[in-house]
């Protein structure tokens, strides 16, 4: 396995992919899948950065303060993220589109603010109880938890991703997978098929949170420091871009998106100060020419047709709001 990974990295080095970059690529592939699951179910949830933060902090505290091995931390981080997803999902998943998006971004921001203030908060409670000023430190606010050993290895990530891919293939052939697609296309009709829409949405939301939590644990043990700054709005936007640029019509798209978008800035280092401009340009151009994402057959066939001069159909309806009533 190790030899295989090293060989792969040797091949990738000329385009700027060293082992740590490779590892971040894999972590981001997991994140891409995490948001893909909710998107696939028609949920525009952007809570992933928040769950990633929860996973990262729980995981790191487990290895640092409780001396658990990475595997234990992984389980812990995933369970914590999944458990927190339950009370968050039940009220919020009733919201739609942008309202769900902003509510879940709000959740992420609240998580971030809680992490920033956790120590102070506990400290001030202790101060009240004990009657003298107490300084409490566990998660260190903006300072971050430092000195985390680098426990994540490439093969952990590859193995995790392989298992995940197997799970996803099976998901697509299951009742749950079909129910997710149905809910995305028409919630009302889905309910008429006997699908418990609320239940399915919550299950998917929890699965998504668990994956984000796992990515958090892995990432914390790669970056060696976890700070709340790393899990802000920017991160959320990045994660969304992984999935959509990769293409959300199959689970393979978000994986590719995570890999490519992580590698891209590293591969573009030779551009020096023009790097950012090109990153933006690439994102823009790719999505404009392949609106369905990199991994999407219709996207590519339309793209190819453009250059073989076959006319396209002009925009079709449904650019506006959702359908009228349930007549």
């Amino acid at each position, binding site marked *: 396995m190790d030899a295989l990974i090293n060989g792969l990295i040797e091949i990738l*080095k000329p385009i700027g992919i060293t082992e*740590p970059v490779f590892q*971040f690529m894999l972590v981001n592939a997991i994140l891409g899948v995490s948001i893909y699951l909710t998107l696939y179910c028609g949920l525009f949830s952007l809570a992933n950065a928040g769950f990633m933060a929860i996973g990262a902090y729980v995981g790191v505290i487990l290895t640092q303060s409780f001396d658990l091995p990475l595997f234990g931390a992984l389980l812990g981080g995933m369970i914590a993220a999944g458990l927190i997803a339950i009370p968050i999902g039940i009220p919020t998943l009733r919201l739609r589109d942008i309202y769900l998006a902003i509510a879940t971004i709000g959740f992420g921001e609240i998580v971030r603010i809680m992490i920033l*203030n956790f120590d102070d908060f506990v400290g001030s409670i202790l101060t009240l109880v004990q009657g003298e000023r107490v300084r409490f430190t566990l998660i260190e606010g903006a300072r971050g938890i430092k*000195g985390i050993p680098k426990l994540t290895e490439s093969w952990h990530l590859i193995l995790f991703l392989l298992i995940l891919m197997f799970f996803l293939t099976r998901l697509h052939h299951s009742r749950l997978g079909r129910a997710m697609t149905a809910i995305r296309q028409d919630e009302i009709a889905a309910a008429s098929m006997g699908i418990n829409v609320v239940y399915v949405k919550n299950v998917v939301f929890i699965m998504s949170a668990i994956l984000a939590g796992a990515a958090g644990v892995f990432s914390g043990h790669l*970056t060696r420091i976890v700070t709340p700054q790393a899990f802000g709005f920017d991160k959320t936007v990045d994660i969304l871009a992984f999935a959509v640029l990769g293409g959300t019509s199959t689970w393979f798209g978000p994986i590719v998106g995570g890999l490519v978008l992580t590698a891209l800035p590293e591969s573009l*280092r030779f551009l020096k100060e023009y790097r950012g401009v090109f990153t933006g340009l690439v994102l823009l151009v790719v999505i404009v020419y392949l609106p369905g994402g990199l991994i999407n057959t219709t996207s590519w066939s339309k793209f190819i047709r453009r250059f073989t001069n076959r006319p396209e159909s002009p925009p079709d309806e449904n650019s506006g709001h959702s359908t009228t009533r349930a007549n």
Partner: protein
Amino acid sequence: AQDEVATEDVQIGFWDECPAPENLPETVSIGAIFGLSGPISVYGGSQSQAVELALTEINESGYLGEGVTLVAITEDSAGDGEQAIAAMTKLVEEDQVVAVLGPTLSTEAFSADPVAQENGTSVMGVSNTAIGITDMGDYVFRDSLPESSVIPGTIAQATTILGLERVGVLYGNDDDFTLSGYDVFVQALEDNNIEIIGEETFARGDVDFNPQLTSLIAGEPDALVVSALAAEAVQIITQARALGYEGPIIGGNGLNSPAVLEQSGEASNGVIVGAAWNIANPAPLSVEFAMNFEEAYEAAPDQFAAQAYTGAWLYATAIRCADSVDRTEIRDALAAIQDFPSPLGLFSFAEDRNPIHDPVVQIAQDGKFAVLGAEE
């Protein structure tokens, strides 16, 4: 202490502890990791400029011997830990640099420095002020004074001179730089038995500090203690004055930027900063650096630039003394540097690879900094 450094004949690049080197290849590469994009590029950009300035001077003066050029391979980390790791890996593994400057932020350093340590390559923080940076290993250095070496002196001096009893504290709590500053301030205030009548926080990118300031000012403090970065500091100072606050404003590193004085104008009167370096520093090396920098880049340098500039010179000196591009020998030579004349003053590395030099405490008056207590 300042005056001792300011002896006329001391010049940068003339640290004569080591003879001119003879065994260096034509090109020696060091790496540099700075935040060149994103909001931190304000700092990273001038750091990178300062390093270029130092390298030009080093190469022109033949500091590393005839025909030897010291070059920096500079990588952008955008303030992001993951990118810093990637950049560090690229520099030490692919580019095979002999040593690395940076990264700009302490949080990035905690991510990236272990990579250098594991590869036996020196890394020198030139703006990392958090606690515990050099604990990461014997290859990890910094030339930036941690806040803990600057602020206690600032508070002590201010207390004696201004007779402080009660202060309000305003700090950014989502940034490890301003938060570390806050930690040290609180400790120093406690040590000096000063009462904290109120604590308020803000977040990076906040623009309106009126609510917090209004609350703090309502308590009629003797001074406002502010731990902020430059952009927010300008707003805090002007808004505090606009709200009618006239007392002293005591700040750390972040307030110590020429832009702060320039932009807050009148309002800056009474701003007290303790810092590793200040543009008003009268020492000749410091003046010369500020002049050269302004000439090259049409902007006044800040403390981060001065530290980056010094960092490049320190590496040049270590390479000169090691007379080798062997990473371990360079590390050893670096650790041995004592009393190196620099814009920061006479500079030495402590046993734990932290910097030793005198900080400065200044007060702003009529748009200029003057040494606190010595002002007219």
